[in-house]
C-alpha cells in the first residue's frame, strides 16, 4: 500500500467547545492511482488532505506514505516531506503575484533535489508562451495550470488538489481535470483530488466518500472514464 490512512482523528478547540473535524477516517491509495475524495461541505475533506500533505497534524491515528510514518514526523521532517514528496494545488491557485509564470515554477524547483525543468513543465501544461506573464495577466484556468505545473515541477510522489476546479467555469474545469488525469496516467503520478461535485467521480480509479468526518464509502472504478467524457 502506497498511502495508508488509518483511523485519523482531528478536532478543533474553539473556546470551551471542541469541534470534531475528523472522527476516525480510514482509507488507502495505491501508487499511480487517481483518487477522488468527495463529500458535502464541512465533511472534513480539506482537513484530511492537509494532514496528508504535511501542512497539519492529526490528533490520533496513523498516516503512512511510501513506508514513512508521517504522523510521527518532527517539524523539520515534515518540512522535508512537503519539500520533496508533495505537490499541492489549491482552489485559489496561490501563485506569488510578484513572480512571472516561469518564476513561480522556479520558486519550487529552486529548493528540491530532483526537480523537473521549469520550462519543460510549462510547455507540458501548454503555457510556454506565457512564461513571462505575471499571474494578474493570466486567466483563472491559466493560473491553475501554472499552479499544477509548480506542483509537478517538484517531481513529487504525491499530487494533492483541494477543489482545483472550484473557482473555474465548466470548460476550464474540465481542461484542468484532464490535465490531472493525463499526468496521472502518463507520469504514473499518484493524484488525490477533492471535490464536492459527485459528477466527477466516474473519472477516478478510487472514490472516497466522506461525511461528518468519517469515510462513508469507498468505491473502485474498474473502468474510469476519461475526463472529456464526463459531464455535469
Amino acid at each position, binding site marked *: 500500500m502506497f498511502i495508508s490512512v488509518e483511523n485519523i482523528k482531528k478536532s478543533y478547540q474553539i473556546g470551551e467547545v471542541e469541534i470534531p473535524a475528523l472522527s476516525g477516517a480510514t482509507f488507502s491509495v495505491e501508487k499511480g492511482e487517481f483518487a477522488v475524495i468527495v463529500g458535502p461541505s464541512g465533511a472534513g475533506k480539506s482537513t484530511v488532505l492537509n494532514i496528508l500533505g504535511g501542512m497539519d497534524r492529526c490528533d490520533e491515528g496513523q498516516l503512512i506514505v511510501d513506508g514513512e510514518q508521517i504522523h510521527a514526523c518532527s517539524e523539520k521532517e515534515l518540512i*522535508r516531506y512537503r519539500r*520533496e514528496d508533495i505537490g499541492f494545488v489549491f482552489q485559489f491557485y*496561490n501563485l506569488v*503575484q510578484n*513572480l512571472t509564470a516561469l518564476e513561480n515554477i522556479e*520558486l519550487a524547483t529552486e*529548493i528540491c533535489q530532483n526537480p523537473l525543468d521549469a520550462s519543460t513543465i510549462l510547455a507540458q501544461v501548454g503555457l510556454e508562451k506565457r512564461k513571462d506573464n505575471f499571474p*494578474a495577466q493570466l486567466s483563472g484556468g491559466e493560473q491553475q495550470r501554472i499552479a499544477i505545473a509548480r506542483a509537478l515541477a*517538484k517531481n513529487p510522489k504525491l499530487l494533492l488538489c483541494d477543489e482545483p476546479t472550484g473557482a473555474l467555469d465548466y470548460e476550464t474545469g474540465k481542461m484542468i481535470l484532464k490535465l490531472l488525469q493525463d499526468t496521472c496516467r502518463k507520469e504514473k503520478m499518484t493524484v488525490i483530488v477533492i471535490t464536492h461535485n459527485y459528477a466527477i467521480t466516474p473519472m477516478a480509479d478510487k472514490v472516497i466518500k466522506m461525511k461528518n468526518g468519517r469515510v462513508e464509502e469507498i468505491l473502485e472504478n474498474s473502468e474510469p472514464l476519461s475526463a472529456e467524457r464526463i459531464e455535469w
Partner: protein
Amino acid sequence: MKAIRKDTFREIKGTLGRFFSIMLLIMLGVAFFVGLRVTSIDMQHTADSYLSDTNFMDFRLISTVGFQAEDIQAVKDLESIKQVTAIKQIDAKLKLSQQDVVVRLFGLPQTNYTVDKNVVNQPVLLEGRMPKNENEVVVDIRGKNIFHVQIGDTLHLKSGTEEKLTEKISKTQFQVVGFIKRPDYLSLERGTSTIGNGKLEFFLLGYDTLFQDEIWHEIYVTVQPTDQISRFSPDYEEALAPSEKLLQQLGETRAAIFKQENIIEVREKLAEQKAHLASAEKNMLEQSSLTSEATAFMSDEQLKAIQAQKEQALSEIEKGKHEIANAYQQLAKIPEPEWLVLNQQQNAGFVEFQDSTKSIEGLSAVFPVFLFLVAALVCLTTMARMVGEQRSYIGTLKALGYGKFSIAMKYITYSISATLIGSVFGSLIGTYLLPEAVYTPYQNMFSTPELQLKFDWFNVLFAVFLALIFTVIPTIFSCVKELKENAASLLRPKVPPPGRKILMERLPFIWRRFSFIYKVTFRNIFRYKRRLMMTVFGISGCTALLVLGFGLKDSIGSIIIEQYDRLYQYQMTISLTEHVNSDEFQLKEPGIEDALYVSEQSVDISSDGMTKSLVMTVPKQSERLQDYILLQNRKSKKLLPLTDEGVILTEKMANILGIKQGDSISLQITETKTKVVKVTGIAENYFYHHLYMTPNVYKELFEIDPVYSTLLVKVSEEKRNDSAYVQELTQKDEIASCAFLSSSNETMDQLMKSLNSVVWILIFSAGLLAFIVLYNLTNVNISERVREIATIKVLGFYHSEVGKYIFRENIILTVLGTIFGLFLGILLHNYTLSATEMDYTMFPRIIQNISYVYATVLTLGFSFLVNFVMYFKLKRIHMVESLKSVE
C-alpha cells in the same frame, strides 16, 4: 457608534505592536520638541529668578573720569531709578602658582555685605564667610576652580602700573575668608583690564574703606518696574528704554559739569596765574632796567642785596612757571569726561547665556520635525494596512448603513489614542528628563543655579497639536479611498497590486547575473515603493542620529588636536618677569629648540555696534610667526602673510562680526579712544579669538612700542608635557610663568565629559527609532504577504529560508538607508554644530572614520535585532489558516 468604539479597543488590543510603534514615535517626537523648547524656557526662568534674587543690574555706568559723590546722588535722584550701588575698584597683579594673573579688587560699603536687599549685583556666598575687617577678602569662585585659591590663603597684590598700589589702597595683603559669585559674571568670562596681559582672571571683594580716594569707578543701577518682566523678552528692553535715555542725558549734564569745574575753570585759573606770573616777571625786568640807572648811586653792598633780591624773584618766577606747566600737564592727562550707560546686552555673561538658550531652541526645529515625519510615514503604512485588511468589514458596515464618517472614526480614534498616549509620555519626558540632560554641558559654563523644571502648557499643547496633524492626516488619507468604494466592491477581495517588471530587468546583463532569489527580492523592493521610502528614511534617520552623536564627540574632542597640534606649532608659552628686556635676554635652556617673542594683550574690537574682546598678538619678528602659528584660510588652505597693511582676524570672530577679508574693524585703544584698521586675512582657528598684527601696525595704532613679555616656545620631543621641566624653568628669575598648551583646557574637558549624556540620549533615540521603524515595516510587510509566506511554506521552505526570503529585503533596505543616513548625518552634524557653538569656539567639522563605523554597526545591529524578533513571528504563521480564506 458604541459598537464601533468597542471594536476600536478590540482592534488596539489585537494590534498592540502597531499601536505601540505609532505611540513610541510620537513619544520621541513630542519629547524632543517639548524638551528642547522647554530647556531654553527653563534656563530663562532659572536665570530670571537667580538674577532677580541677586538683584542683577539693569544698567552699569562707567565714566572716563570716575564718579563723585554728587554724581551718585544725581543718579539716585532720577525718577524711575530704584536702587543704586556705587563701587570702587582697582586692578592689580597677583602671583599665583608661578604665574602673574590680573585680578580686580572691588570695595563695597561694609554695611552692604550682609544680606542687604538694596545692593545691586549682590554677591552670593558659596563657601566660608564674608570679610569682617579690612584685612579680609572674599574671592570669586573662579579663583578657586582655576587658580586653586583656598580659604586661609594670603594674597599679595602688586601694582600693574608705575604708580605704587599703596597710593590707591591702604593695604595690599589680604586673607581669603570665603568664595562668592556675582550675577553680573554669569559666564566664565571676566573681561579685560588695562594692565598686565589684559585678561582679568577673577575678582576679589573687600572693604571700600581701603580705597584712598573718594572716587567711584562704576555705578550699578536697577530701574523701577522690571521685576515682573523676563529679561529675555522684548518687553524688557522696551520698558527700560526711557530710563536709559534719562541716564544718558544725566551723563551728558554731569560730564559737562565735571568739565566745567575740573577742566575749564582750572584752565582759566592757570591762565590767570600764568598771566599774573608773566606780568610779575615783566614788572621786575622793567624795574631792574629802571634801577640800573640808579645803581650808579649805590654802594656795593646795596647792589649785592638788590642782585640777590632779583635772583630770588627770578627763581620764584621760574618755580611758578614750572608749577603751572606741571598743572597743565596734569590737566592734559584728564580725559574728555564722558559717561557710558551699558545695558544687559553689553554684559558678556548675560549675552552668552542668552545665546545658549537660543541655540538650544534652534535645535527644536530639526529633530522633532524629523521624528514627526517618520511617525507620519509609519502611521500611513500602518493605517493603510489596517484599512486594507478590513475591506470586508468596512463593506459590511456600509451595507448596514453606517456613514463614511463613523466608519473613518474607528481608524481616527485608533491613531488619536496612540498619539495622545504617546504625547503624554513624551511631554513628561520632555519636561522632566530631557532639560536636565541638555543643560548639563552648559551648567559648567554658567554660574546659574540648578535648573527649575516647569510644565509648559503652551509648548506641550503645541507639540500635541503637531503630533495629531502628523498622524490624523495620514490616517484620513489612507482610508479615504476605501470609504469611497461602495459596499459591494468592498466585499469582493481586493486585487493585489499586479507584478511588474522593474527597471533593472531591462538591463539584462545585470539582471541575468542575479540568482533567482535576488530577482524576487529586488522585484519586491521596488514593488512596494512606499515601504522602500519609509525604510530608507527611517533607517537613515537612525544612522544620522548616531553619526551626530559620535560626531559631536569627535568635533569637540578634536578642537584640542586641531588647535594645539596642527595650528599651533609651538608647545609652550613662557611669560617673562617685568624687568627682562627682550632685546637682551636670550633663553638658552636644554629642551628649548626655538622661541619667538610676542606681545599678548586682551583688547576689544567692534564692528556694526557689536563689541567683542579677544587676544591681540604682536610677534617681534612678523616673518617668523608663520613657523609658530599656522595662519591659513580654512577652506582654501592658503597661507595668510602678516603684513603692515593690516591685521589678521580669526574665523569665528569674523563670522560673529560679519567681517570679510578687506573689511575694517575698530580697535579700542584706550577706554574712550578707538581706531580703525583693515583686516587683511581671516585665519582658521578653533578656540577663542585672536588678532595678529605686525609691530609697525601696533606702533601706528597705539603710538607706543609693544612690550614683548611672552615667548612662544618649541620644546624638544622628550621634554613635552613634563611637569618637572616646567618647575625647573619657573625657578629661573627671568621667567614669571610657563605652561604647556594642552594643559590649559579646563572648559573643553568639562564640556567633553558632560557631552556624554547627550551622546547617550542620541544613541538611545536612534536605537528606538530604528527598532520602531523596522519593526513596524516588517510587521506590515509580513501581514501583507502572509499568503505568499504560507505558500512558500507549503512548498517546503525551511524556516531559515522563509526568513531569508523576507529579511533579505529588509537587509538591503537597511544597508541603503544606512548609506543614505551617513550623508544625512554629516548634514545634521554640520547644522547642529553651527546651531550650538559657543561664542568663543568653532567646532571643527570633523567626524572620525570610526564614528561612521560605530553608526553603521549599531544601525545594522538594531536591524538584526528586529529581524531576530520577527523570525519567531514568521515561524508561527500557520499555513492552513492563512490560505483558507480569501482576504
